[in-house]
């Protein structure tokens, strides 16, 4: 199913999230099962199914990485749930170093300043990767789609790092 078509939105990575939100709400309202409570069994089933689709679509389009995965899937490149190991050694080395820095934060003289520095670094790199992803997805060529897939994989590591960082931030505050 093409989630962009469901919301009648252009199939682009750069998406107006406010517009997405308002279209989501109006579709939700239109297909709400309450509206079909007195309808035929077929209509009721349709409204439940449609509501589920609308929720899935909104969830996927809202988050940049899921949106990119959906766009790639529409172009025949399915990368969600892939189990293949990622093997770019330089990238992984850098991830390892960032993880090590996070793990050793408690030993720093000023852990909060160190945390802030790492966060800046993570955010900056994530921004660059997202920009490159956006550019790769505009092209619609097999080569650029492969590049986009690789960028999504890299970004997933950064999102995981961000989660770890937030966990440590919480621990520092407690």
């Amino acid at each position, binding site marked *: 199913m093409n989630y962009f078509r469901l919301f009648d939105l252009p199939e682009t990575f750069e998406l107006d999230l406010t517009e997405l939100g308002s279209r989501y709400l109006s579709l939700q309202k239109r297909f709400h099962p309450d509206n079909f409570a007195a309808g035929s069994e077929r209509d009721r089933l349709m409204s439940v199914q449609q509501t589920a689709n609308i929720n899935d679509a909104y969830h996927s389009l809202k988050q940049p990485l899921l949106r990119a995965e959906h766009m790639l899937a529409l172009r025949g490149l399915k990368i969600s749930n892939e189990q293949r*190991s990622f093997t770019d050694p330089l990238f992984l080395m850098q991830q390892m170093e960032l993880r090590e820095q996070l*793990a050793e934060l408690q030993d720093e003289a000023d852990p909060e300043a160190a945390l802030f520095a790492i966060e800046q670094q993570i955010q900056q790199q994530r921004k660059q990767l997202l920009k490159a992803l956006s550019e790769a997805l505009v092209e619609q060529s097999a080569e650029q789609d492969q590049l986009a897939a690789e960028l999504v994989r890299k970004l*997933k590591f950064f999102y995981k790092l961000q989660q770890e960082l937030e966990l440590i931030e919480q621990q520092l505050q407690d």
Partner: protein
Amino acid sequence: MAYSNKVIDHYENPRNVGAFAKDDPTVATGMVGAPACGDVMKLQIKVNEQGIIEDAKFKTYGCGSAIASSSLVTEWVKGKTLDEAQLIKNTDIAQELALPPVKIHCSILAEDAIKAAIADYKQKHGG
């Protein structure tokens, strides 16, 4: 999710955690990651002149199963030739650790890590 006793044992007492000196020519490194869960695994082997893996070390950022899988592999490869180590299968790791289906990818990661380390060694030594 319940971890098996073997996973818990490796998780609580990981074998061979650490790293060898990067510039040691007898050392080779395999780096792999799993985008889906953000796990990162580094596995190093130290190979003697007879082509036997003398020692192995690992460092893994990931879940208990990923740590246990890499810990187990460092134990298994010691004393093996590169060709023997190449034969380690993720299914053997998963079976030894009694990994549930959702954690099979952790054993795949460990297999790929040792394969990457062997490839790194062969590349460095023109083999």
